[in-house]
């Protein structure tokens, strides 16, 4: 479904991604792992074309989307949830959802506000609150819900567990599993290995902007030394 081929991305002059490749097949939940600074966020932004790769290609459902404006990428069915959530603080929960709303798309689930409140019950109680008055966890849920309003076929989640209380992390994990069971394809970046393992079957490990590992969690767990070399201290 999603193929990233040999991309090189820069932040200003900093060469962040170096010939990075990865692919996600339909229905998979893939965790993008790596220490901070490894290039996880840039990878997701590069897929979304918020950072346009200087070379290489990003293909979505076989179409080369490199260099497209972000709104076109979103309309093609890629949903992006940024690391810092980027909730519209002045807007209410309902209004935040409205910004994300896009017409139904063939072949993917069509989300309604009610369905999203079922997925994230905490949000339902706070639907009239302004974005900036929500807790970190609620903002994270809202950010995901807002993106789901665009009925994406593939979701890019940047560090969904970061800065969230442990209890909420479990809710978050449950929601992602639920999305997976409904057939949504997910690529999520994570630092929390336990969280990543709980929700995803496959892992891609990044280090210094390059893919070091790509495969199942089972294989990764079988080689703890290899795992720790890239993820642990």
């Amino acid at each position, binding site marked *: 479904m999603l193929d990233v081929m040999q991309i090189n991305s820069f932040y200003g002059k900093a060469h962040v991604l170096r010939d990075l490749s990865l692919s996600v097949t339909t229905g998979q939940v893939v965790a993008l792992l790596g220490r901070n600074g490894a290039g996880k966020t840039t990878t997701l932004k590069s897929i979304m074309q918020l950072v346009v790769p200087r070379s290489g290609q990003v293909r979505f459902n076989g179409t080369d989307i490199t260099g497209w404006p972000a709104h076109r990428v979103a309309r093609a069915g890629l949903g992006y949830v940024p690391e810092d959530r980027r909730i519209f603080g002045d807007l209410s929960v309902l209004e935040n959802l409205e910004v994300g709303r896009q017409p139904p798309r063939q072949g993917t689930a069509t989300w309604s506000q009610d369905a999203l409140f079922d997925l994230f019950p905490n949000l339902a109680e706070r639907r009239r609150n302004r974005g900036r008055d929500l807790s970190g966890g609620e903002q994270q849920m809202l950010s995901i819900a807002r993106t789901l309003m665009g009925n994406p076929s593939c979701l890019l989640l940047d560090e969904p567990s970061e800065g969230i209380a442990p209890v909420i992390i479990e809710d978050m994990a449950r929601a992602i599993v639920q999305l*997976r069971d409904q057939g949504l394809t997910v690529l999520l970046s994570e*630092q929390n290995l336990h969280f990543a393992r709980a929700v995803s079957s496959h892992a891609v490990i990044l280090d210094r902007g390059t893919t070091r590992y790509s495969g199942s969690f089972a294989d990764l767990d079988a080689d703890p030394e290899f795992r720790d070399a890239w993820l642990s*201290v």
Partner: protein
Amino acid sequence: MNAVLSVRNLTKSFGGNRAVDDVSFDLARGELLALIGPNGAGKSTCFNMMTGHLKPDGGTVSLNGSPITGLKPRRIWRLGVGRTFQITATYASMTVVENVQMALISHHRRVFALRPYAHRLYRDEALGFLDLVGMAAQADRHCAVLAYGDLKRLELAIALCHAPGLLLMDEPTAGMAPGERTALMQLIADIVAQRQLSVLFTEHDMDTVFAHAHRVMVLNRGRLIANGTVAEIRADRQVQDVYLGGGTLFSALEPPSDA
């Protein structure tokens, strides 16, 4: 211990969130001290309170025994603290050597001078600093066309202009190629040894930290959870946990079935 930098009970909150919570440590002369921790642990907040970019809610920072808490960045610099930035900050419209000359003009307190022409002032002295960081050959290039690694070296040269006793470096190797990282850290280590400088740096590249730091501190959720030698840190269970996921176990979840 006669500490170059002493931090005591440093605390800072944003909203209700304690970004830095009761942090205390010392930095000795000639020491290369790394501050590490996962994203959002409070490294940058901690760092910015030492450079004067943020005012702490509580606690003190002292330089050679005198308090510098809450001083403006340029005051702290005058007291002998050099710094480099996570995202490089240089004067893009000037040449490489002019960047260093600008710092020297400030060092010699001639910022408001109207003569002579700035490009003639302290040029040799500036070239000396560029030589020290291996940038002399590029002295007359336009700063805007430098490679990222070279910008980092230039920043280091600028930071050394005021003969600082302490260097604060925020992710000195961020955004650099692996080869460049080692070279830059080696350069820093050499300069530290040569000039008996003290360095505090934040870093997320573990190889860099373990290869060069004399001592490592680990920050998690605003608190210092470990402070010791490289070997001690690597053996610390709590640190391992923090880096691998904070111990949450997700007992309520079934393992994924689509594997």
